[in-house]
């Protein structure tokens, strides 16, 4: 089963659940029409049901794939085929760059509360450039400074948006 899909669906179901609970404080119907709780309540229920259905669908697909894998494994054993590359799945390793970038951005956004937007952003994009885009640290820092300088010129100097 794709865990990322389960995370997405469970997240959406929780979000819908919170809205469903709070929608009970809003009127469902009013004189001659529907109240502000009508749409959120119905769609929150629909979202939760769909999340359940999609998780079940993902589980069934996974079971089907798993069976296929099992059959292939049995056939390979029977015909004494080599197992091929039995190394660790790269799926987990693939997740590292986006996960670390997301965490860095959440951290940087938290630090932005203390005043500067560009400073934490600069540190984040330097790390992303150096670690995941394979630039040297010096080149990554130089590219980040150049990027932020252009952004500063456009947003702050020209458009007067206080991004510093």
């Amino acid at each position, binding site marked *: 089963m794709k865990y990322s899909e389960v995370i997405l669906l469970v997240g959406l179901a929780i979000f819908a659940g919170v809205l469903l609970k709070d929608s009970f404080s809003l009127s469902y119907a009013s004189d001659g029409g529907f109240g502000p709780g009508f749409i959120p309540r119905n*769609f929150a229920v629909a979202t939760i049901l769909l999340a359940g259905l999609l998780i079940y669908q993902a589980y069934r697909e996974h079971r089907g794939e798993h069976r296929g894998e099992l059959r292939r494994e049995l056939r390979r054993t029977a015909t004494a085929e080599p197992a091929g590359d039995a190394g660790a799945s790269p799926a987990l390793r693939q997740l590292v760059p986006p996960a670390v970038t*997301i965490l860095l951005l959440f951290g940087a956004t938290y630090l932005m509360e203390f005043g500067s937007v560009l400073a934490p952003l600069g540190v984040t994009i330097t790390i992303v450039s150096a670690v995941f885009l394979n630039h040297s640290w010096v080149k990554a820092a130089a590219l980040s400074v150049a990027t932020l300088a252009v952004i500063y010129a456009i947003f702050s100097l020209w458009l007067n948006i206080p991004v510093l």
Partner: protein
Amino acid sequence: MLDALNSLAGGFADVLTVYNVLLIFAAGLIGTVVGALPGLGPSAGIALMLPLTFGMPHISGLCLLTGVYMGTMYGGRITSILINTPGDAPAIITAMDGYPLMQQGKGGLALGISAVSSFVGGLFGLAVLIFFAPVVSSYAIYLGAPEYFLLMAVGLSTIILLAGDNILKALMATCFGILIGTIGADYVSGQMRFIYTIELIEGIDFVAIIIGLYGLGEVFYNLEQRKVMNLGKPSFNLSEYIPSRAALRESAAPTLRGSILGTVIGIVPGAGATVATFLDYTMEKRLSKSPERFGKGGIAGLAGPEATNNASVPGSLIPLLTLGIPGFGGTAIMLGALIMFGLQPGPLLMVNSGDIVWATIAGLVLANLFLLLSNVLMIPLFVNLLRAIQGNLASVVIALCIVGAFSLSYSSFNIWIALIFGVVGYLMKKNGYPTGPFILAIVLGPLAENYFRRAVMMGQGDVGIFLERPISLSLIIIMGLILVGTFFAKRRMNARRAQS
């Protein structure tokens, strides 16, 4: 008709001074740059330029503002095509086929096609504005809440076409979008819904959502896939950037259809360019002989919505100038500007201040022409700029998205929103959830809910009101045709796939 042409000639006579021509050219360029920046659309562009018009003559001030408005519509498509980050909401659809073309190394072609289609759309909208403004706008006032609701419902019914292979996933995305749209003040009852923090009173900013969903989501996904763009080395070979005759021929019919649809939807207050582009994309996919090319770099999927987008600008000016009704944010600020200049938008505007209105329209015609020239000439610059930074694109997009989200309200709140939707967009893309229905639901959901509840109140609780009025009945039939037609088309396509 001759009267309109005479008035337009008078408008040109007023506007054709060196100062005004330079001003319109600069306004178009500024609008293009502002529109290209994530987070800044027509409303922001006009608002930013408004203080500059305080000391200007009325005609110059209005030319500056309308030029910026038109320029933002051209600019929104640039980052959509180049980095999959729409500058504003109407440019979302542009990314669907423009960005795949860019990934295929045809970014110049995509920018060229979109510039030409934008020009044709804008020109068509202007022609309607010039010749039919008073006539067309007089019909718009006959639309009531039931018709508006059904117009939104027709838009929502197109979700089935944007759904892809798994309809359940599309429904999930739609429900999520509608729930997001319920956050904030309820326009019918005035009650607050799900206000967990003060910033949510007006709901979640739509632009922050698209910055996260498309910009950051794409970066996270590419980082996971370790996708590196290979766009080649910077080159100034013009043939690479000018669309071929075959490409222009392929885009001709979608451009024309998009121009008509954009103008019509632009006239309807509240519908706006975003709805128009979604409707046009769906219509083109439905009409296309090769719908499988849509979303993979189809020229029709790029040209049609681009023409729609720019045709909706003059379209939205029709109810503003003739009835005083602003269709959406950008025209609402324009309304403020007209009042600031001492003009009174409404039926008497053309009578009392016709010279200023016609000069503004003439300014728009000039702006559209300048924008075509400047945008075509700037294509090599944009494409080569992207080629120069392609090795560091992820960092540049992250920086632009974060600063763009910050600029929406000068606070970190919208950055949090963009980040959250960046993660949602990444997970949706990774698991094959279509983002089109989600965005459409966010745009249309609140409007549809608002009009639906008002219509039911008009009918005193009786939903039969939707069947009693001829326009609403026609819209129900159109919606039914879209749903049934799409269902059978999909079945036919699946059967063909199974056979092959």
